[in-house]
């Protein structure tokens, strides 16, 4: 199982039935593949659909129905089309139960940076700032390090996405919950020790007793 699949499988366990879920482009979108069959959720794409479905069969694409990455999708029975004001109204208004986003950095305050590297990459924040500010549960899914360098830091040095403590960090090495007094190590990845996690992490980690391994 590669790092991304570990992450996607573990995040999938956090998704509650009958909720509204937004999955970011890339790694987060893989989460949908690992939901148990009996867990029914509605996926929201911020470009305007609640009830995003799978990719359509070839030749049956609708150019007016895509996900937020511009890929062709379908709509499940009970889907709703909404405009951007409603889409972000749902996000900012606390109606979105879970958002799963990628991350560039995250720090001991639980603050996320994921939208720009000054002087290098300026894609824009798109919907990320609203998602982190507004969703009930914010899950950051990312590989633990970037080219061997820690991404979980004492304090982010990239521009922040929001001044809000995210709910959970899931990497291939660890599940970490930002809490009042820091980052609580909750689980380790397959074949990973607590010491492995500590040495791949710049931030201080709170460790309370035995740390279980992910059950995937």
């Amino acid at each position, binding site marked *: 199982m590669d790092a991304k699949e570990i992450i996607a499988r573990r995040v999938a366990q956090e998704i509650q039935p009958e909720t509204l879920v937004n999955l970011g482009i890339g790694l987060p979108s893989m989460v949908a593949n690992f939901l148990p069959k009996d867990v029914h959720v509605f996926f929201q*794409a*911020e*470009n*305007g*659909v609640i009830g995003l479905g799978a990719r359509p069969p070839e030749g049956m694409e*609708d*150019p*007016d*129905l*895509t996900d*937020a*990455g*511009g890929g062709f999708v379908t*709509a499940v029975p009970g889907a709703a*089309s*909404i*405009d*951007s*004001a409603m889409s*972000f*109204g749902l*996000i*900012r208004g606390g109606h979105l139960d879970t958002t799963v986003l990628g991350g560039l950095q995250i720090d001991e305050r639980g603050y996320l940076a994921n939208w720009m590297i000054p002087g290098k*990459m*300026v*894609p*824009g*924040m*798109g*919907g*990320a*700032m*609203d998602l982190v*500010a*507004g969703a009930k549960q914010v899950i950051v899914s990312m590989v633990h390090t970037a080219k061997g360098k820690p991404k979980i830091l004492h304090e982010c040095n990239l*521009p*922040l*996405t*929001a*001044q809000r403590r995210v709910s959970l960090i899931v990497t291939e090495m660890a599940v970490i919950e930002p809490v009042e007094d820091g980052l609580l190590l909750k689980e380790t990845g397959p074949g990973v020790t607590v010491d492995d996690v500590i040495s791949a992490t710049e931030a201080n980690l709170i460790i309370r007793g035995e740390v279980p391994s992910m059950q995937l």
Partner: protein
Amino acid sequence: MKQAIKADAAADLIPDGASLLIGGFMGVGSPHRLIDALVAREARDLTVIANDTAMPGTGIGKLITSGCVSKVIASHIGLNPETQQKMISGEIDVDLVPQGTLVERIRAAGVGLGGILTPTGIGTLVEEGKQSITVDGKDYLLETPLAGDFALIAAHQADYVGNLEYSLTAHNFNPIMAMAGKTVIAEPHTIVPVGVISPDSVKTPGILIDHLLERAH
């Protein structure tokens, strides 16, 4: 009732230097014929207010490639490397705005509000130069209205009053921008006789539309 006009006639209404609200999300739900007509007439110095600048060769990306644009106000330019290059070279000035804030600023202009308070952007670079206001113990940024000289709207179906229906994820910014352009031009796929669209299906009332493009085919 409105006479439907051709795309080139509509593009001729839009002077160089104008600010344009343009519907669409990564090219989906963008007014493609209007964009092509602006490229064809070599429009210059446009300000484009839109969610994104799509990709090179698609939708708003064509305006960027063709040198029509001097300023972009958008939430995302990540999938168009040309926009990023022209931003770095100084050819295009780019303002990045969180997507939810962008649509609410446009809505505020359209519905006559002087601004809205949003939690989005608090404690980030977006805060710079903005007033922060505390309501019920929570901090918000005051974000001000964003209007355009023109709004270029893509729709699924229109009638000759200008009433508009949209399709699936091609709604996006269109219904909101239709309220916020001084002049509003709608580009529908099809046009049906007045009375065919149920009042309950209308998402943009025709009284907001100034000009209607001919049907696509």
